């Protein structure tokens, strides 16, 4: 089903992804800002970054007629400008409003996409809080820059932001230094970055400009204005390898006080550039517009004439493209079709090989076929690689949730993240956001104790929520761990019985692991009981369902007073599957190889019934088995002497699946089942095996669940029967 975008639609798609990226980046910056604020300092760089992002967002919103977003970003831009120019002071209240603004912006984007209603009320509320914030706390710095012996030409080209930073530093009594450095034109970008990196620990770079006094034709001299609390000798020492001269800007004796604005006649930056360019006046016509607001630090301050025209600014710095994931899905379908072609070619080759008169042709075809196969595999890997994104995309949103929830609940919570660079299929990362959010919320909401309780228990005041991700073979493990009060299994059992989810007799047979598994039962979702009991269970059944839909499993372990850990095990990708092709009840089915640990052959009489459950003994250990045909209620006409047991394992659990026959192994493109089959459990999707025949893909996670969890099975069976009736 090819979806075609016309140009406007494509432009809108790009607007959405770009706007979304901007909103995400604002969210990230706000987190760093929040962290810095809690450390007691305001980072002007970050505020400036946010300002720039919001400014761009406003432009985009205007371009695409997203009027709510345009109105919101306009007000935000005002506030941020005040902050960045030091006219307002950052405060926790302002930060809260900014965080809310980021959330509301995301909502607006969702509504523009048609996914939800426009959050008009949210915007109205936010605008009124914004209105209440601005316009107070104004502090205009009137410290005289004239006290310093600064070149009026330089002062004249400062942006408002740079001027503000300069004033702030002067007000704080920080000394100013003028650093002159010569850079070869060829390497100016890297050399300048190096110098900036070296300078950063010492102070703040206010601005830099070319002086026009380069020593050689292919060199350029920059004057860098730095505010630093360090002594001149320290700066000289630090930069001794960079070949620079350092000079402290002296204070003028006969200073005129009170001058707060620079002379209006001072040249604009563009004018200054032009005056520096001997050749630019004549032939080449280069129009240099004013830098956009806030663009305080031009990366390249060298004369534009040094570049060939076509190399100018039209080229984007970024080497990346944004791709709609549906396009990748379509490509993947094509790869699937090609795989089928390849299988047919292989079959033809076999036929040719049997004919002695075609030997030459057949060996040639064989060679071509190998090359085809190899390149097809590369193509497939390539597409899969494109689909991979780091988990940080999901984790960053979680950091905001942590901040929000901990503020709501007045708890101190540190979020510790490891392995955010672990990569997963884009689709999985997207689908994972909500389940992870639920779990993190639960951890803070119910796991982490009140401050006083923690102190009484001898724990640090601030609770810790840890997110750990790592890859293990074909799977990715994500752990969500807290150092809260943990889950009390005794209380958990009591509630389960109270809610009639299981009988006393059943309860007695449960292992500790089974007991913790109870929190995933649908009956445990009511918030009230969860809070009264042990503080877990808000929507955990939904979390489990969502994780299972992605082919993953979730497990929980907990110790009272020590904390709770959720472990989510997921496949790396959903799109393509190394699969075991098996025969079940006369039909062909496919099993994801990632969850297959081994295949063993048994005699039919090796199956023993233990405690009402069928098992086999594998290397001296008991392994529960499930006859797949029986599980799927298929006819079991075939009664083999020898049976095939496929051992599947997910997380810590093992189960043997009994199948009629193992046919082979193949890479398959997995496709989703339609919405009409959403209620049918046990399948992860379907795949085409060539010959236009479709085979179902067994979902090991859901079978493990149905078979191994006695309680779960009971409930699911209830659901099955209800469906059969309808």
């Amino acid at each position, binding site marked *: 089903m090819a979806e075609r975008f016309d140009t406007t639609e494509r432009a809108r798609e790009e607007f959405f992804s770009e706007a979304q990226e901007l909103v995400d980046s604002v969210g990230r910056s706000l987190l760093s800002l929040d962290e810095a604020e809690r450390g007691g300092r305001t980072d002007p760089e970050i505020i400036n970054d946010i300002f720039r992002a919001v400014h761009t967002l406003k432009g985009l919103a205007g371009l695409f007629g997203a009027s709510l977003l345009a109105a919101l970003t306009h007000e935000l831009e005002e506030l941020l400008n005040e902050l960045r120019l030091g006219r307002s002071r950052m405060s926790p209240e302002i930060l809260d409003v900014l965080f809310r603004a980021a959330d509301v912006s995301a909502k607006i984007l969702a509504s523009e996409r048609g996914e939800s209603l426009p959050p008009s009320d949210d915007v109205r509320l936010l605008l009124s809080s914004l209105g209440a914030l601005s316009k107070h706390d104004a502090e205009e710095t009137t410290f005289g820059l004239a006290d310093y012996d600064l070149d009026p030409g330089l002062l004249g080209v400062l942006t408002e932001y740079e001027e503000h930073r300069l004033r702030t530093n002067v007000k704080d009594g920080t000394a100013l230094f003028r650093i002159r450095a010569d850079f070869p034109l060829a390497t100016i970008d890297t050399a300048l970055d190096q110098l900036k990196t070296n300078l950063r620990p010492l102070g703040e770079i206010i601005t830099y400009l070319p002086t026009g006094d380069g020593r050689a034709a292919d060199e350029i001299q920059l004057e860098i204005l730095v505010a630093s609390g360090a002594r001149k000798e320290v700066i000289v020492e630090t930069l001794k390898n960079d070949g620079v001269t350092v000079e402290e800007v002296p204070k003028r004796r006969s200073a005129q006080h009170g001058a707060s604005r620079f002379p209006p006649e001072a040249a604009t930056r563009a004018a200054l550039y032009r005056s520096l360019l001997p050749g630019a006046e004549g032939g080449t016509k280069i129009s240099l517009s004013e830098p956009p607001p806030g663009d305080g630090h031009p990366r390249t301050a060298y004369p534009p004439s040094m570049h060939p025209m076509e190399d100018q600014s039209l080229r984007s710095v970024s080497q990346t493209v944004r791709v709609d994931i549906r396009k990748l899905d379509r490509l993947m379908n094509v790869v699937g079709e090609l795989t089928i072609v390849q299988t047919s070619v292989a079959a033809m080759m076999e036929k040719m090989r049997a004919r002695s008169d075609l030997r030459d042709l057949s060996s040639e075809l064989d060679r071509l076929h190998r090359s085809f196969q190899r390149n097809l595999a590369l193509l497939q890997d390539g597409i899969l690689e494109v689909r991979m994104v780091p988990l940080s995309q999901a984790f960053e949103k979680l950091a905001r949730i942590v901040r929000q929830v901990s503020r709501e609940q007045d708890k101190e919570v540190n979020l510790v993240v490891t392995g955010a660079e672990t990569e997963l299929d884009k689709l999985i990362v997207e689908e994972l956001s909500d389940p992870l959010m639920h779990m993190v919320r639960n951890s803070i909401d119910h796991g982490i104790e009140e401050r006083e309780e923690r102190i009484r228990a001898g724990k640090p005041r601030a609770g810790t929520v840890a997110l750990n991700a790592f890859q293990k073979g074909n799977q990715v493990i994500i752990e969500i761990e807290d150092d809260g009060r943990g889950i009390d299994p005794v209380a958990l059992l009591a509630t389960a019985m109270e809610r009639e989810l299981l009988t006393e007799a059943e309860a007695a047979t449960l292992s500790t692991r089974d007991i913790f598994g109870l929190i995933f039962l649908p009956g445990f979702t009511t918030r009230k009981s969860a809070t009264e009991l042990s503080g877990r269970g808000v929507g955990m059944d939904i979390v489990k369902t969502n994780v299972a839909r992605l082919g993953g499993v979730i497990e929980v372990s907990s110790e009272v007073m020590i904390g709770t850990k959720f472990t989510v095990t997921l496949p790396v990708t959903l799109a393509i599957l190394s699969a075991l092709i098996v025969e079940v009840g006369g039909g062909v089915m496919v099993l994801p190889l990632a969850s297959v640990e081994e295949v063993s052959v048994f005699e039919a009489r090796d199956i023993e019934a233990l405690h009402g459950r069928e098992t086999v003994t594998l290397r001296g250990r008991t392994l529960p088995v499930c006859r797949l045909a029986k599980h799927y209620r*298929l006819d079991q006409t075939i009664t083999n002497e020898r049976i095939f047991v496929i051992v599947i394992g997910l997380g810590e659990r093992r189960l043997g699946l009994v199948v009629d026959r193992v046919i082979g192994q193949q890479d398959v493109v997995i496709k989703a*089942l*339609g919405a*009409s*089959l959403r209620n049918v459990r046990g399948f992860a999707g379907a795949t085409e095996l060539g010959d*236009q*025949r479709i085979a*179902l893909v067994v979902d090991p996670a859901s079978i493990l669940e149905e078979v191994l969890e006695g309680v779960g099975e009971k409930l699911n069976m209830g659901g099955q029967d209800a469906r059969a009736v309808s």
Partner: protein
Amino acid sequence: MLAQSPDDTHDLSRAIGVDYLVLRAAGEVCALPVHAISEILRRPKITPVPRAGKAIAGIASVRGAVVTVFDLVEVIDLPRPATKVTGGRVLLIDRGNEKVGLLVDSVIEVVRIEKDSLEHASVLGGEPAPHVLAVARPKGSPIILLNERLLFEGIS
């Protein structure tokens, strides 16, 4: 669940002047509006889905996409004839959130329904099923006009 049907359940006027595709399922002749059908396919290979509702014949591949195929006989709850007729055609129709296949024995023709040939569904006696819009006799013999909007009512 046959409880509350929308007001237009058996509203004849919806069929007036509309083209209907006449088809056969389990020996019975019925019809669906042409505009509801996006494609008529030769019966593809259908893979049954264990534990799915009995109205679902299985899944099939339609140009690389997996499509759920319903058996019209089960969907509208017709008695299955003793001599098993194998469905020969699949109609692709929209079921709200997805495109699904509808297995029928054969398609016969397209007819335009005129006002004079329409009879109210109640002529069948008793409370008519919600998926029956009306009875029409475009060429003399009666045809059940199916209401495409309520076809899947009561199917999980």
